[in-house]
């Protein structure tokens, strides 16, 4: 079975900065591929390539078995790749139903009387959110009044409704509390069960292990590991994610400085 999206040995350079080098990733229908990495590991660069905001410089990017270079977010959307960004998913002051259809508004009527199909927009927003298990109080409220988790869910429901085959989620749980994160992960799983291929970007191995089917670890722009869920335990994933031996070193250092001899942090030697 061909992957929905496959990256093989993809690299991206910004001038003389190596943002990403030799990264491979497969996304299959009905599966969640997690991309894990610390800050600066190249996660955002990877997303931007898949979402069509940046072009890759080397390696191959195939969609449905066909090699591609995306030139715009619109093209990515047309090819069935929807990206939900952590901070720029919605327009806060606009009502939920206007946000839901933003950029793909349905219209009725012809010529100068062509207008938004407001009734359909309202009802569809309500029913689609309900189908994803989100029971919204009022589709007319500005989306900025929803909680962070609810906003992510609306963005996910929107992508599912518009027929996305691949859903890319940029740190959907990063700014959320424990309970809210659980809610969002539930909708991620719901999208997977609906047959979408999901790319989940996160730096939280616990969240990733709960829902992920395969894991790609990034470190300083290169691939530090790629595992199927059956090949790895949560402990091992956490250890690799945190830098493995670096973590042991860190715990060692932290243990020694538990009672600081030199509070100023300056050691006279």
């Amino acid at each position, binding site marked *: 079975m061909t992957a929905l999206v496959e990256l093989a040995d993809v690299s991206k350079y910004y001038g003389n900065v190596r943002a990403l080098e030799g990264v491979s990733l497969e996304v299959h229908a009905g599966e969640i591929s997690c991309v894990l990495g610390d800050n600066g590991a190249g996660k955002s660069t990877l997303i931007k390539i898949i979402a069509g905001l940046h072009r890759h410089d080397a390696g191959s990017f195939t969609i449905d078995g066909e090699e591609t270079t995306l030139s715009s977010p619109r093209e990515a959307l047309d090819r069935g790749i929807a990206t939900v960004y952590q901070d*720029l998913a919605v327009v*806060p002051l606009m009502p939920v139903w206007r946000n839901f259809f*933003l*950029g793909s*508004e349905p*219209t009725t009527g012809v010529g100068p009387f062509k207008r938004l199909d407001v009734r359909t927009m309202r009802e569809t927003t309500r029913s689609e959110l309900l189908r994803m298990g989100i029971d919204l109080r009022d589709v007319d409220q500005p989306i900025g009044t929803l909680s962070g988790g609810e906003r992510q869910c609306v963005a996910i429901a929107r992508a599912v409704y518009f027929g996305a085959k691949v859903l890319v989620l940029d740190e959907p749980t990063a700014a959320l509390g424990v309970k809210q994160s659980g809610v969002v992960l539930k909708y991620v799983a719901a999208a997977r069960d609906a047959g979408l291929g999901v790319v989940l970007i996160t730096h939280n191995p616990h969240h990733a292990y709960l829902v992920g089917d395969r894991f790609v670890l990034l470190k300083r722009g290169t691939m530090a590991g790629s595992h199927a869920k059956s090949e790895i335990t949560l402990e091992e994933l956490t250890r690799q994610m945190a830098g493995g031996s670096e973590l042991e070193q860190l715990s060692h250092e932290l243990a020694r400085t538990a009672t600081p001899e030199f509070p100023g942090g300056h050691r006279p030697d």
Partner: protein
Amino acid sequence: MSRTETSPAQPAKGDERLLHRSLARRLMGRPELGSVVGAAAVFLFFSIVAEPFLQASSLSTVLYASSTIGIMAVPVALLMIGGEFDLSAGVMVVSSALISSMVSYQMTANTWVGVGVSLLVTLAIGAFNGLLLTRTKLPSFIITLGTFFMLTGLNLGFTKLIDGTVSTKSIADMEGFASARALFASHLTLGSVDIQITILWWLALVAVATWILLRTRVGNWIFAVGGNADAARAVGVPVTKTKIGLYMGVAFAAWVSGQHLLFSYDAIQSGDGVGNEFLYIIAAAVGGCLMTGGFGSAIGAAVGAFIFGMASKGIVYAQWNPDWYKFFLGAMLLLATLLNAWVRKRAEEKA
């Protein structure tokens, strides 16, 4: 934005968590509220202090003054909802009139040629503003401040170069002057009230702008590019085209206003128009448009223009020194914006 027609469609499907929102609460969520309260207050005030204010003839004078501001305030409001400013709007009106007059005078003997050329050139100036903004990504304040001074200089420079004085020559004896005047500067009588045609232009523009904002895809895009341009771009909204279109909308209204100036006064003073851009921005802001974009209404801007129409004429009827108008303008801007901010906070606290 359009809460008006929720209830008839689905009254049975109410949510039990949604407490009944009183009419007052719902009204408070509307962007126009501050301006409507302000308009009522100003109307009351001048009804008391200026006796001739309530006569029918005064009403038509007030409406005429409001319409000359209002024609520009509407597209400026749309632009502000889209998150941008246009400081060149005031002098662009005069540029448009000058182009029309000079093309007619120098090139042909038919005013309609000038009117047509003026439309094209004015739209091009608007597009230039928009293109410069979207290409350079500089703040619109800087871009349009630049075009404001450039246009001011061009207006004076060209007029002196071509006509030798600071005002244009009369074109009243030319072919097409009467018909152009009928379209841009005539007036009709309704009962005892004299209606200037600019009032019809104004109302038509408000209607079209409101329709665009609330019921078309473009309207959705205008709110989105002002509210969060990056999010809009990410879901496929043509941000660049929307912004350029908004600047061309301002240019179109500047053309209408410019032709009105030309065909009602015949000769144009090339130094006019400076400072009017602030009137338009103030009317839009009083009408509930957020300075940061993403929120506002065309009707609010129209009410804002009406407030200033009432004030500018009301001060005359009260036989005060017209200098007080400027003070009033500033005070009204502060009061209305404060009221708008307060109302919005109350409305969003728990709707």
